[in-house]
């Protein structure tokens, strides 16, 4: 156990030195820019949901998760599962920024025989922990991973990121019950609460509110946070679990298309591909925010 702890403190993508909030902000802006360029190259992708969760991914990979790109299968690593697998673009660009895959490979996104499928594949891409795509799969798998960590007395933590719309899938609530029943306080669920699903607002399509109350009723520790505010995200993660003996649900209030003014909160940007002109404007805005 001590050995495991020592190893973990030596790992961490920031090399043990904490990156500043400002550095994280710039990393996030760069990941967004890379995502826009990648989607332009591929001619496909889910840009709106990629941009809404980029700050969360950045904070996780660059200041929280104990993972090692040199040893993606290290048994004591923390596990991150992207349940909203259609946002694979943001995961790939983050994994590239974190050194799990080469930046150049991002240009193969969704091309024939590329490892970078439209939805992530754990057998193809280092750093990917679960095959997702159909919604409502991430949380049950995460419950199993958290149970496995407990069984082998590992301190590895499991973090899963779900879209808000996908909470309409019943499997999530089966897993929600189980996580609380098994008192998995080594498990954290982020909800990317951007309020929009493919065709319309979640509340118009199939209402999720009152969302925090639902998770509290399922006996989870619940905290709400601005999903684009890096210091707040870091503060919340530093306090895990928010309630001892309970899994934590972090409802991250976000905006679909965050970082690009004409995409922000616009449902049509769920999976629209920007034109060359739109991409140029988007990159300009993101470039400015990266400074």
């Amino acid at each position, binding site marked *: 156990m001590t050995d495991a702890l020592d190893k973990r403190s030596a790992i961490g993508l920031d090399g043990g030195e904490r990156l500043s909030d400002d550095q994280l902000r710039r990393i996030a802006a760069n990941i967004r820019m890379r995502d826009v360029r990648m989607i332009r190259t591929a001619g496909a992708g889910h840009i709106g949901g990629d941009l809404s969760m980029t700050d969360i991914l950045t904070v996780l990979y660059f200041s929280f998760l104990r993972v090692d790109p040199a040893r993606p299968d290290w048994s004591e690593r923390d596990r991150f599962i992207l349940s909203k697998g259609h946002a694979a673009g943001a995961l790939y660009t983050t994994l590239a920024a974190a050194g799990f895959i080469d930046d150049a490979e991002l240009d193969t996104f969704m091309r024939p025989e590329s490892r970078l499928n439209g939805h992530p594949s754990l057998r193809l891409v280092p750093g990917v922990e679960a095959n997702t795509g159909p919604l409502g*799969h991430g949380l049950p798998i995460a419950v199993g991973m958290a149970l496995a960590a407990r069984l082998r007395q590992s301190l590895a933590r499991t973090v899963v990121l779900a879209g808000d719309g996908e909470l309409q899938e019943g499997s999530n609530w089966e897993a929600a019950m189980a996580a609380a029943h098994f008192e998995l306080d080594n498990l954290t669920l982020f909800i990317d609460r951007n309020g929009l699903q493919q065709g319309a607002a979640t509340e118009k399509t199939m209402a999720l509110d009152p969302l925090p109350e639902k998770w509290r009723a399922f006996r989870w520790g619940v905290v709400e946070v601005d999903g684009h505010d890096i210091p707040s995200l870091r503060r919340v993660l530093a306090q895990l679990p928010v309630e001892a003996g309970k899994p934590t649900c972090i409802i991250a209030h976000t905006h679909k298309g965050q970082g690009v003014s004409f995409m922000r909160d616009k449902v049509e940007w769920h999976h629209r591909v920007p034109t060359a002109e739109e991409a140029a404007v988007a990159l300009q805005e993101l470039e400015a925010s990266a400074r």
Partner: protein
Amino acid sequence: MTDLFDCRVAFAKTLVELASADERVVVVASDSIGSSNLKEFSNQFPDRLINVGIAEQNLVGVAAGLASGGCVPFACAPAPFLTGRALEQIKVDVAYSRHNVKLVGMSSGLAYGALGPTHHSIEDFAWTRVLPNLVVIAPADPIETSQAVKLAAEHDGPVFLRLSRMAVPAVHTPDYRLRFGEAALLRAGEDITLIANGVLVSRALDAAELLAAEGISARVLNMATVSPIDAAAIEAAARETGRIVTIEEHQVNGGMGSAVAEVVVRTHPVPMRILGVPGIFAPTGSAQWLLKRFGLDADGIRDAALELVRENAT
């Protein structure tokens, strides 16, 4: 009177032995401790029996996560609900992910009898055998069940074990060694081959005996593994006996018989009969009654074989 055995006993006993020897072995159950015969496992390894309640989708997802974390999970639930309710999890979380999950479908086939079509699992071969990476196996007796459980634990990859609750006689000797993807020759014969699996193997053997009385020499193969299928044994049966009858506790469409036919048409086409449930939801009746109703008892198998021989006299 031949002794009859409930294969769930052999399953549970073998699982306890495996768990004693390997702490990675865990069970995930869906409020099915009793019907899966897991009481003893639960007594001996309370921390390693994870009961997720009545929630098959979560059951399979949790098992995938456990496998990802280094465990060897046996995910146990009634076969109709495990394969029907959680098919997408079986496809994505287990087969596509190539996770080391052992799916155990209990009380498969027509075993639930008069509980009705909601509880019959006669679609599961079709649903599971098309999934890449997934070994699909239906043992015939306690000896083969025990071997299948051990082999599943040794195999580094996904397995679907299709178990029954119907009592069966032993068809294998204790020195029998099951291998995935290899049919077992239980009786030599030259005129026709009967290919069965699960609880119907003993009935196929009985039918072969009845056929011998009619002067027909029937080969009997136990096709326990439905995927990957033993193409060599099927091709040899087609070449050497010229006629094949398949017998399974499943819909006639898409199951083991279809898998056999796929091999027959591309290797050595011969006349075939595929015995099973003929594309209907079963009427009310006990499991034994239903087997007879669908011609899946020894008499029914004999009759189908005789018909095939007469229609295709050489």
